[in-house]
C-alpha cells in the first residue's frame, strides 16, 4: 500500500523538504556576514532566505514529479521508529489530500520572503522565524504519526508567536498572547484525546502502542459515546484554528497586528491546518462522532459564512475586513468538507488553495498601502485608481478572485462546495448562497471606498505605484488566479482519487456495520445509498446505545465505482 521512494538508493525527499528551511534558518545565524543591519546585509540575508525557500519549493516540485495521483494512500513514505518505547515513529508521507497544500506552503514562502523588505528591524530574526515556521507547517502536513503531528502542530506556534509579538503592530502583545493561549487550550484537549485513543488501542491490542494514523484509524475500536466526546475535543482544537464561528475572535486581532508576511502565512497556510486536522485526524479516527456532529459543524460553518461577511462589511480597517472575509471563506471550506461528498470535499480542498492565493494576495496589497501610508483606515484612502493604476488593477483581480467570479480560481472552489453541499444540506446551503451576494457587497464597497472617487491630494498625492519588485511578488499569484480558474483539471486530478477513496472509507465507518441498512448488493458504494449526512447522523444517533462498533478494514482500491 505504501510505496517507499527510491532515488539513488533511498533519498529522503520529504525529510529534505521539511528540514531544509530549518537548516537554512540555523545557517542564517551561523554564517558570519549576516549580522549587520545595513542595507547591503539585509539584501544578502533576503537573497539567502529566498534561495533556501526557493530550493524548498524545487524539492516540493520534485515530490510532485514523483507523486502518483492514482495511489490513494501515503506516498514517498519515510518511516523509522523514533521513541520505540511508546511506539512513536518518524513517519512522513504525502497523499492527494496534502500534496497541494504542501505545494501551496512552499510556493507562498518565497513570496513572503520577497515581501519582507518592509520589515525594518532585525530582518534576520524575522526570516529565521519564517523558515522555522515553514519547517513546522510542512511537518504538520506530512506527518502520518499522530505524535509527530502533534509535535509539529505545537511547534508551529512558537515562530508565529514571535513574528506577531516582535514585528507586529501596537497591540501585538495582546494579539499574540490571545492567539497562542486560545490555540494551546484547544491543542491540549486534542492531546488528551489522542492519549485516550492510543490507550484504547493498547488495551485492545495486548498492550501494543502505536501512534500511526493508519493503524489507529483502521483498528481502534471506540464506542459511539467515546467517539462523540473525543471528536468534540478534536473538533474544538481544530475549530479554533480554522477558525470556526464562534471561536474566531483571535483571528482579526492576530491579522491586524501581524506584519504583512505574518498575515499572509496565517491566512495562506496556518488557517488551513484546522480543517486539515479535521480531514486527516478527526474524521478518520472518529467517523461516527463526525457524523453525529456534522449538522452542527455545517450550521456553524454557514453562520460563519454569513456572519463573517456581514461583520466584514462593517469594518473600518482594511486588514480587519480581509480578516473577517477569511472567517466567511473558511466557512465555505468547512461546509464543503462536512457535506462529505466527492463534489463538496474536492471543492473544499480546492478552496483552501484559492483562499491562500487570493487572501494572501489581498494581505500583500494591504501591506503595499501600509508601507507607503502607515495606515489601514479605509477612510484615509479614496480615488487611488487614478493615482496608482497598476495597483488598482491588481487589487481588482484579487478582489474578483475573492468574490468568486467565474474564470477565477475562487469560482471553481465555491461552485463545487455549494453544488456538493446542496445535495446534503439544501436549506443550509441556500443560506450559504447569500454569502455570494454579501461577498460582493463588502469587497466592492472596500474597492469603491479606496480606489474610486476623488483623490485626496494632501493625503495620497504622493503615493507611488507598485515597484518592479512588488510586481514580481504578485505575478505568480496573478497567474495562478486565472490558471486555476480556467483549467482546474490538473489540480483536481491530483487530489481526486485520494478524496474519492477517503470519502468511501470514512463514510462506510460512519454507520455501524450490521445496522438495518445493509451494504447494497449491486456494488454501489454505501455512501451513495445512505442518502446524505443527515441520514448518516441519524443512523449514528440511533446506534447510540450499541456499545461497540465493529471496525472495518481499509477497503481495497476500487476505481470503477462512482461516488
Amino acid at each position: 500500500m505504501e510505496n517507499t521512494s527510491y532515488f539513488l538508493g533511498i533519498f529522503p525527499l520529504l525529510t529534505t523538504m521539511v528540514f531544509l528551511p530549518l537548516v537554512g534558518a540555523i545557517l542564517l545565524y551561523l554564517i558570519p556576514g549576516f549580522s549587520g543591519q545595513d542595507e547591503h546585509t539585509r539584501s544578502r540575508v533576503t537573497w539567502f532566505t529566498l534561495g533556501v525557500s526557493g530550493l524548498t519549493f524545487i524539492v516540493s516540485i520534485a515530490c510532485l514529479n514523483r507523486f502518483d495521483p492514482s495511489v490513494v494512500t501515503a506516498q514517498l513514505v519515510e518511516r523509522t521508529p523514533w521513541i520505540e518505547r511508546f511506539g512513536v515513529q518518524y513517519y512522513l508521507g504525502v497523499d492527494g489530500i496534502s500534496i497541494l497544500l504542501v505545494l501551496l506552503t512552499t510556493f507562498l514562502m518565497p513570496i513572503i520572503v520577497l515581501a519582507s523588505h518592509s520589515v525594518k528591524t532585525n530582518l534576520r530574526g524575522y526570516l529565521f522565524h519564517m523558515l522555522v515556521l515553514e519547517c513546522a507547517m510542512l511537518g504538520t502536513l506530512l506527518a502520518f504519526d499522530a505524535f509527530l503531528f502533534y509535535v509539529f502542530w505545537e511547534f508551529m506556534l512558537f515562530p508565529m508567536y514571535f513574528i506577531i509579538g516582535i514585528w507586529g503592530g501596537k497591540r501585538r502583545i495582546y494579539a499574540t498572547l490571545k492567539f497562542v493561549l486560545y490555540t494551546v487550550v484547544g491543542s491540549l484537549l486534542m492531546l488528551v484525546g489522542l492519549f485516550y485513543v492510543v490507550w484504547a488501542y493498547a488495551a485492545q491490542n495486548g498492550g501494543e502502542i502505536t501512534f500511526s494514523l493508519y493503524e489507529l484509524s483502521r483498528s481502534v475500536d471506540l464506542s459511539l459515546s467515546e467517539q462523540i466526546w473525543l471528536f468534540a475535543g478534536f473538533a474544538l482544537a481544530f475549530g479554533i484554528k480554522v477558525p470556526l464561528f464562534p471561536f474566531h475572535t483571535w483571528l482579526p486581532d492576530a491579522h491586524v497586528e501581524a506584519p504583512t508576511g505574518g498575515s499572509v502565512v496565517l491566512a495562506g497556510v496556518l488557517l488551513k491546518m484546522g480543517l486539515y486536522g479535521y480531514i486527516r485526524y478527526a474524521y478518520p479516527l472518529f467517523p461516527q462522532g463526525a457524523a453525529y456532529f456534522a449538522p452542527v459543524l455545517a450550521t456553524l460553518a454557514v453562520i460563519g459564512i454569513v456572519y463573517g461577511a456581514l461583520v466584514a462589511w462593517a469594518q473600518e480597517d482594511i486588514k480587519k475586513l480581509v480578516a473577517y472575509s477569511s472567517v466567511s471563506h473558511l466557512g465555505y471550506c468547512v461546509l464543503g468538507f462536512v457535506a462529505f461528498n466527492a463534489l463538496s470535499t474536492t471543492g473544499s480542498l480546492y478552496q483552501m488553495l484559492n483562499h491562500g492565493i487570493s487572501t494572501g494576495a489581498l494581505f500583500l496589497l494591504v501591506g503595499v498601502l501600509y508601507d507607503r501610508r502607515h495606515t489601514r483606515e479605509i477612510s484615509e484612502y479614496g480615488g487611488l485608481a487614478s493615482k496608482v493604476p497598476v495597483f488598482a488593477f491588481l487589487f481588482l483581480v484579487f478582489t474578483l478572485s475573492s468574490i468568486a467570479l467565474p474564470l477565477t480560481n475562487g469560482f471553481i472552489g465555491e461552485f463545487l462546495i455549494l453544488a456538493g453541499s446542496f445535495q446534503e444540506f439544501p436549506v443550509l446551503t441556500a443560506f450559504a448562497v447569500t454569502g455570494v451576494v454579501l461577498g460582493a457587497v463588502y469587497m466592492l464597497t472596500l474597492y469603491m471606498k479606496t480606489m474610486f472617487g476623488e483623490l485626496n491630494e494632501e493625503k495620497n498625492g504622493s503615493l507611488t505605484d507598485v515597484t518592479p519588485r512588488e510586481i514580481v511578488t504578485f505575478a505568480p499569484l496573478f497567474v495562478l488566479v486565472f490558471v486555476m480558474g480556467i483549467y482546474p483539471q490538473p489540480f483536481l486530478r491530483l487530489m481526486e482519487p485520494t478524496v474519492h477513496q477517503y470519502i468511501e472509507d470514512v463514510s462506510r465507518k460512519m454507520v455501524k456495520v450490521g445496522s438495518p441498512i445493509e451494504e447494497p448488493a449491486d456494488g454501489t458504494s454505501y455512501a451513495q445509498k445512505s442518502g446524505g449526512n443527515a441520514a448518516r447522523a441519524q443512523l449514528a444517533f440511533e446506534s447510540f446505545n450499541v456499545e461497540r462498533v465493529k471496525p472495518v478494514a481499509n477497503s481495497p482500491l476500487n476505481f470503477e465505482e462512482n461516488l
Partner: protein
Amino acid sequence: MESMGSHREIVDASLAIIPLCPLVGAMVAYIVGQKQKDLAGWIATAASTLAFLFVVKNFFALGTNQVLLDKSFVWLSVGNFSIDFAFQFDHLTAVMCLVVTGIGSLIHLYSVGYMAHDESRPRFFAYLNLFLFSMLLLVLGANLLVLFVGWEGVGLCSYLLIGFWHKNIAFAGAGRKAFVVNRIGDAAFLLAMFLIIMNYGSLDFMALSRVMPGETSEGLATLISVLLFIGATGKSAQIPLFVWLPDAMAGPTPVSALIHAATMVTAGVYLMARLNFLFEMAPLAMLVVCMVAGLTALVAATIALVQNDIKKVLAYSTVSQLGFMFLAAGAGAYWVAIFHLVTHAFFKACLFLGSGSVIHACHHEQDMRHMGGLQRVMPFTAATYWISTLAIAGIFPFAGYFSKHHILSALEHAGAHNPQLFPWGVPLSYIATFAAILTAFYVTRSAAMTFLGSYRGHAHPHESPWQMVVPLVVLAGLALVGGVFLEGALSLQHYLGHAIPVGDVHHGESMASFSFLLNALLHSWPGFLGVGLALFLYTQAKEIPGKIARAFGPFTQVLANKYYVDELYGAIIVRPLEGMARFLWKGADQAVIDGSVNGTAAVVEISGELIRTTSTGQLRHYGFFMFVGTLFIIFFYMAL
C-alpha cells in the same frame, strides 16, 4: 412538447475563435493603447468585426436541423460530474450572435468618435471588448455553467463600464449597485443549477432537453424555473430587481446602448428561450413570468412619461420593453420574444446612440428641458432618432410593429397554449396595449423635446463625426426595414423553428396585398395614438402637459420619484442590513463573543490568583482541602 435536441445532427466546428477575437482584442487594445491611445478604439473595433465575420461564416455553415458543437476542453470533472468548456451554435445562437457582434461592432465604431477625447479610452475599449467576450460566452455556451460564466462576466463588465468615470463616486456607486443587484439574481441562478445537478447530474443543454421532459415533476420544474427567472429579473431588469438599470446610465452612452439596451439585458429572455423545455413543464412559473413582465412593462412605461433626462427616458423604456419580451416568453411564444429582442436591439441602440450624439453635441447636457430645435443642426441624428421612434411606437412598416403585433396576438392566444394563463391572456394583452400607447407617447415626447421647437440651451450643438453617424444610419435602416426582412424574407419564425418550438408557421398572405397593408395600419393604432397625442401636446398645446402634471400633483410626484422603490429598498433592506452588520460587529462580535473569550481569560487569571493564596505550603491546609474535596465527592455520588 417535443424536444428539439433529439433529432438534430451534431457537427464539429471550431467556435471558440468567436469569443477569443474580442478577448485578444481587449488585451491588445489595452497594451497598444498605452503608447497609441487612438489605435485602441480601432483595434477593438477590428476585433469585434472579426468576430462578426466568424459568426457570419458559421451562420452560413449551419444547415437545417444541425447544431454546431465545439467541446474545447474538460473544464471541471469530479466523480461522475463533468462539464466541458463547450460551445454550441444553433439557430437561436446564430440570431443572438449576429445581434451581439453586429450591433456590437457598430457601437465600437461609434465609440471611436464618442470617446475620442477621453484620457482613458484604451481602458474603455478593453472593457468593451471584454464585454463582447463575455456576452458571446453567454450565448455560445453549450451548458448552463459556461452560460453562467458569460452571465457573471457581462455583469462584471457592466460594473466596470458604469463606473468608468470612477472619479465621480456616485457613478462608482451605481456600478456597485448594478453588480450587487445582479448578484442577488445570480444567487438564485446558482440554486437552480444545484437543483438541476442534484436531479439530473448534468448542466448540458442538449442532455437536459432529452432528460428533463418526462422525468420532472411539475413542482420541481416550477421551482427551478422560478429560481432561473429570479436570475433573469436581475440581469434583465424586471420587478423587483430592475432598480440598477436606470442608475446604470452613469456609464458612457455607447455602453448604455450596447450593454444596457441591446445585448446584456436581453440575456434573461435568451435564457428562457434556451430552456424552453423546462419552462414548458412549469405552467405556474410561466404565469409568474407573465404577471411580473406585464407589471414591469406598465410600471416602467409610466415612470418614463415624466423623466426629463433623455437617457433616463430610454432606460425606463428598456425596462418596459424587456417586460414585453418576457410577456411573449411567458406566453410560450419564445420566438416572438427573440423577434422583439432583435428589433428592440435595432431601434433602442439607435435611440441611445442618437441620445449620445445629442449629449455629445450639447456638451454633456442630458436634460431635455435644455435642448430643443436640434433637428436643424443635427439632421442625421434627428432623422435616425425619428425613424427609431416610429419603430418603437410599433407603427407599420417599421420593425417594432411586427414584433409588438406578434406579442399582442400571442397573449390573446396564450390560454390555448397554457391553461394556467387562460383567464389572464386577454387582460394581459390589454395591459400590453396600454403600455404600447404609453411607449409611443413618451418616446415621441423625448424626440419632440429634443429636436423640435427652438433651442433652449447654451452650448453650440453640431452634427457628430462620421464614426458616429454611420452606425446611426445603419441602425435606423435596420429599424426601418428589419421587421419586414425578419417577417418576410428570413421568416424568423421558420428559422428559429430549427432550434426552439415555434408553433404553427404561417406562410400565407403576401405582405404586398392591400388587405394586409390595411390590416397592418389598423393594428398600428396604439402607435398612432401615442405619437399623435405626444406631438399635439408638445408642439401645439405646450401648456397642457404642465396643467395635467399639476392636476395630478401627487401622482406625478410618485412617478417622478420612480414610485419610491429605491427609497423603499433602502428602508427595508439596505439600511437594516447595514445596521445589523454594525451591530454584529460591535455588539455580538466585540462585546459578547470576544468579551466572553477575554472574560474566560480574566476568570482564569483571577482564579489563578485565588488558588495561589491557597498554596500556603502548610500541610494542615492541604489536609483540610482534601477533606472538603472528599466530602464533596461523596455527597455528589450519593445525590446521584
